[in-house]
């Protein structure tokens, strides 16, 4: 049991990670490419199966709520009916069915667009808080933020044509330098974590030791 829960995942990580990494660098031997391709294909297959398990978790959580009549159980009822009903429709009547498309176009798409559009309001409220000049750092953020905003819209150019050039300078130099610094740091961090997995030293994903 310990082998299946602990040792096997580690060795699969070592083998799979090692093969995919090596495949990036070497032209041959051919079996490295085959092994890498094989692991990448299996990743897609396993992710698909895991999605089914995820859907099972979703239905279990909501059916428990309905069964126990927990608070706001009505929402769980709607969720469960929507998941089971729409999946059944897709499987039985196929995705080309007009009813399937009608529900997607007239229920899912507008709801999805509505949720995404909330982002505009959240960005505004977050900017309002972030742009309060409480200290020198926040003041720099406020000034550069206002300059970039004015440099990105027509009214900024009407006020002072230099806003465009100033915006480009901020984006091309201080902004790019900071972003590239963080990207290099993050890339090295990703390398560190990946190497720990490939060398079998990372065990956090196995649920403790």
């Amino acid at each position, binding site marked *: 049991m310990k082998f299946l829960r602990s040792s096997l995942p580690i060795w699969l990580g070592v083998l799979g990670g090692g093969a995919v990494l090596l495949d990036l660098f070497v032209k041959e031997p051919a079996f490295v490419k085959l092994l890498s391709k094989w692991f990448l294909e299996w990743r897609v297959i396993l992710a698909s199966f895991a*999605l089914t*398990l995820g859907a099972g978790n979703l239905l279990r959580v909501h059916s428990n709520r309905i069964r126990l009549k927990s608070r706001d159980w009505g929402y769980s009822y709607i969720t469960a009916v929507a998941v089971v009903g729409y999946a059944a429709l897709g499987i039985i009547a196929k995705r080309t069915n007009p009813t399937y498309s009608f529900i997607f176009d007239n229920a899912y798409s507008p709801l999805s667009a509505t949720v995404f559009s909330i982002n505009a309001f959240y960005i505004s409220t977050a900017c309002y808080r*972030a742009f309060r000049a409480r200290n020198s750092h926040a003041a720099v953020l406020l000034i550069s933020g206002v300059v970039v905003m004015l440099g990105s819209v027509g009214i900024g150019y009407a006020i002072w044509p230099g806003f465009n050039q100033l915006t480009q300078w901020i984006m091309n130099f201080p902004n790019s330098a900071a972003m590239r610094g963080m990207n290099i740091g*993050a890339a090295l*961090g990703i390398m560190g*974590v990946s190497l720990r997995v490939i060398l079998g030293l990372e065990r956090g994903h196995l649920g403790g030791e």
Partner: protein
Amino acid sequence: MSLVTGTVGKFVFLLVFVGLFWYFVNRTASGAQLHIRRIAGFDALDEAIGRCTEMGRPVHYTFGIGELDANVLASFDVLGYVAGQCAKMDTDLIVTNALGEVQMMTEEIVRAAYINAGKADSYKADNVRFISNVQTAYISAILGIFQRERPGANLMMGPFFAESMTLAEAGQQIGAIQVGGTGRVIQVPFFIAACDYTLVGDELFVAGAYINRKPVQVGAIYAQDFGKWFTLITVIAGTILATMGNNTITDLFKK
């Protein structure tokens, strides 16, 4: 064995990194004490959980919508710690997921943390929830959880996309203490704007070393830091040499 064209420089860098990695891992394994600077985002985890305990509100933890990558693996270390602390303090922990494969691992990590804390009976399987791998569905479900269950802390660590702004701002509006961390640098400004604490750039990837202080992980962090120095020196040397008309370093990364 021949190398793919254009990868020689990267391969050399990888070998240097692996060498540094082994050196520092062995050093820490043989008992050398290496220092890691304080990271406010991790120190705030106990404060956030303690606040939830006092208020009788749950802790919410999520990974974002991105795929199972190094961000998620690093985040697992944080989740294990948070779950253990929640178990000790009898505070509810709600974990939301967008990926099936992450869901399975998450269940295992949270369950193991409760067992290790001697609170196996307190583990609530229904609190580790798969939401959806569709971004808007994932966002709306978490917004609903925020409104209905009012978590006192919102911890967001993993590969975030546009949901970072929405979730962080919604968490801020319900008064949750928030810690955000992602290796996706483009999302960091959103966390900085809306969260109380943010793990910037590679800070998320030191989670295991910082929280657990395991020698292997501490050694890896030192290797990363030396990797940064190596990169910095290469960039500066490459820039100076290229300015003087010598493209040795530039050409090495093109081979």
